[in-house]
């Protein structure tokens, strides 16, 4: 399989009254076609900025400072709005967190899906467009689409709205779908249904998915590969098995250990001490050092490079260096 999307050394920052906020710092990752990559991280770590950068959907205050975005080998970093319009929807598409906000409240949902179809399949008659829209809605699991097409978003339940948004995203047969926390705003039971539908469609249509989430459980359910982000950097990346069974970065380990599912009820949960640094004033060296019990002296001086653990598994922590002292499990 070839690399469908390759992002290299991407840095994005925002202009704020307090100065420059570094949202994404030197991020590199790649995506093969038909693969699901989950980007996991806490709020403010830059995971959705990363998606929006690739789609060029950033607000004007954001600036891409460096890096390249290769799609099928062509660099789109310098593309202007006009060129991007042709790529959006066809090559990549996006699903957002809040399905209510991402549908126009004053247009019937069917029309919104049809609108997306119309852009990508030129020369279809109105009837054919609506037929295709109906098909898309059935595909995403909306019962009786011909009836529901006339409804307005506010008449839909949360799950149905998110299915509609999926239908819109799929209208142009995109190669890559960016999903920005698509299940966060939904109830647990609905979340499970949407995730299953997502996985099924992904298999069926063979598209690549970048799935942004803060929930490790969701990531485990859907992802082939996982990238963990912290303070604008990818700190660990690997296949799902590698992340869940052989995590190396202390941040990933901390996240896993603070999950309540296997904790002794009423015992004490492990917590990562401290708080993530502000993107306005990142500390020198490793951004995670000041929350890491086993931080090395070098962590405060120099940023760690990506250490290779296996072909697919990389982590950015000095603890993996040959010279680092031996630590107790699970860190070593």
């Amino acid at each position, binding site marked *: 399989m070839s690399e469908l999307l390759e992002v290299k050394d991407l840095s994005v920052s925002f202009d704020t009254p307090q100065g420059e906020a570094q949202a994404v710092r030197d991020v590199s990752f790649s995506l093969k076609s038909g693969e699901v990559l989950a980007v996991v991280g806490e709020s403010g770590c830059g995971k959705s900025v990363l998606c*929006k950068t690739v*789609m060029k*959907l950033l607000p*004007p205050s954001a600036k891409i400072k460096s890096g390249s975005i290769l799609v099928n080998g062509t660099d789109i970093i310098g593309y202007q*709005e*006009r060129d991007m*319009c*042709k790529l*959006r*929807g*066809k090559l990549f*598409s*996006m699903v*957002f*967190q*809040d399905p209510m*906000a*991402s*549908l*126009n*409240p*004053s*247009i019937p949902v069917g029309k919104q899906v049809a*609108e*997306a179809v119309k*852009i*990508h399949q030129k020369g279809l008659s109105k009837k054919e467009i609506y037929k295709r829209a109906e098909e898309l809605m059935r595909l995403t699991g909306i019962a009786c689409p011909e009836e529901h097409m006339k409804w*307005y978003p*506010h008449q839909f339940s949360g799950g149905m709205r998110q299915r509609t*948004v999926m239908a*819109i*995203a799929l*209208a*142009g047969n995109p190669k890559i779908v960016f999903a920005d926390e698509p299940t966060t705003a939904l109830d647990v039971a609905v979340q499970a249904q949407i995730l299953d539908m997502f996985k099924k469609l992904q298999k069926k249509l063979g598209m690549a998915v970048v799935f942004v989430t803060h929930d490790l459980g969701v990531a485990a359910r859907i992802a082939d590969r996982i990238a963990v982000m912290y303070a604008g950097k990818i700190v660990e990346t690997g296949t799902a098995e590698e992340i869940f069974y052989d995590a190396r970065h202390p941040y990933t380990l901390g996240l896993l250990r603070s999950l309540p599912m296997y904790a002794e009820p009423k015992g004490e949960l492990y917590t990562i001490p401290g708080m993530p640094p502000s993107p306005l004033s990142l500390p020198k060296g490793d951004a995670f050092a000041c929350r890491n019990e086993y931080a090395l002296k070098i962590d405060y001086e120099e940023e760690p490079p990506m250490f290779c653990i296996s072909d697919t598994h990389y982590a950015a922590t000095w603890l993996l260096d040959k010279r680092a002292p031996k630590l107790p499990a699970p860190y070593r």
Partner: protein
Amino acid sequence: MVRYRLLDGVKKVFLFLFSIFLLSAAVFFISRLAPGDPLVSYYGERVERMGIQERVWAEEKLGLKDSVWVQYIRWLGNAIRGEFGISYKYKMDVIEVIKGRIGNTLLLGGVGFCLVFLLALLLGIFCAWHENRMPDRIVCTLGTITSCIPEFWLSLLFIFIFSTNLKWLPGSGAYAVGKADDWGSRMEHLILPLTVLVVSHIWYYAYMVRNRILEETGTDYVLLAKAKGLNKRQIMFHHCLRNAIPSYLSMAAASVPHVLGGTYIVETVFSYPGIGTLSYESARYKDYNLLMLLSILSGAFVILCNMAVQKGAERDGR
């Protein structure tokens, strides 16, 4: 559902009539309480030379002798039958007086209103399109300045420049003497008042349109529309504008009285024979019957507009 709607409609009509009734009562008592001699407007200069007996006779003739309550009830009885009395100044049926003038105001106010709202919409879209870039900034600055110029002063300025000095356009009246049927002359007389009306009101609404559209462009569904491949023009016209226009329309309806008031001022400065000059005169010189009908007309108009806005808001409430 039908019954419910019918009931609602009846309720609305009743509410409307009740409001008009209250309004008429308020205006009636207010105008009688205000000082001034209504006889002046009927007899003009002669009043000063009238003896007491003559005065009493005149007041009786105009029905001003009775207590205010009796007068009001009498007026109300006549009004229900469609008789609003005669104008003291013009000495003819007030309906006739208004009929002769209302066309002029409808022309000025109507065209002005449409122009203001249409141009404001266009200007607002223009500014939103160039958000925070040079064209937007220039228009915003200019707009703020023009919106701060008092309407009457702008009128005076225009008359001074274009009428008195350059002599390009006429500065008063609705048509040249003896040319009442000449549309060209009417148009010529309309240009200056219309310009003043548009210039002094447009920015208030254009700024609102601009902010409303920018509010819409910040939402998630615009991001989704972008993500599905729509270009800026499609997003602006199919999504943002579509959502912004209902609230704009209701705001336009709600601000009819605002523009109406502006029309009155412009009419007065340009001595344009319309409702505005008429109501100014009638209020100033206590032409009671005329004043009543004028206030009720403009009040009814305003209340109707408010009701339309409410109706629209209810429908938009989903």
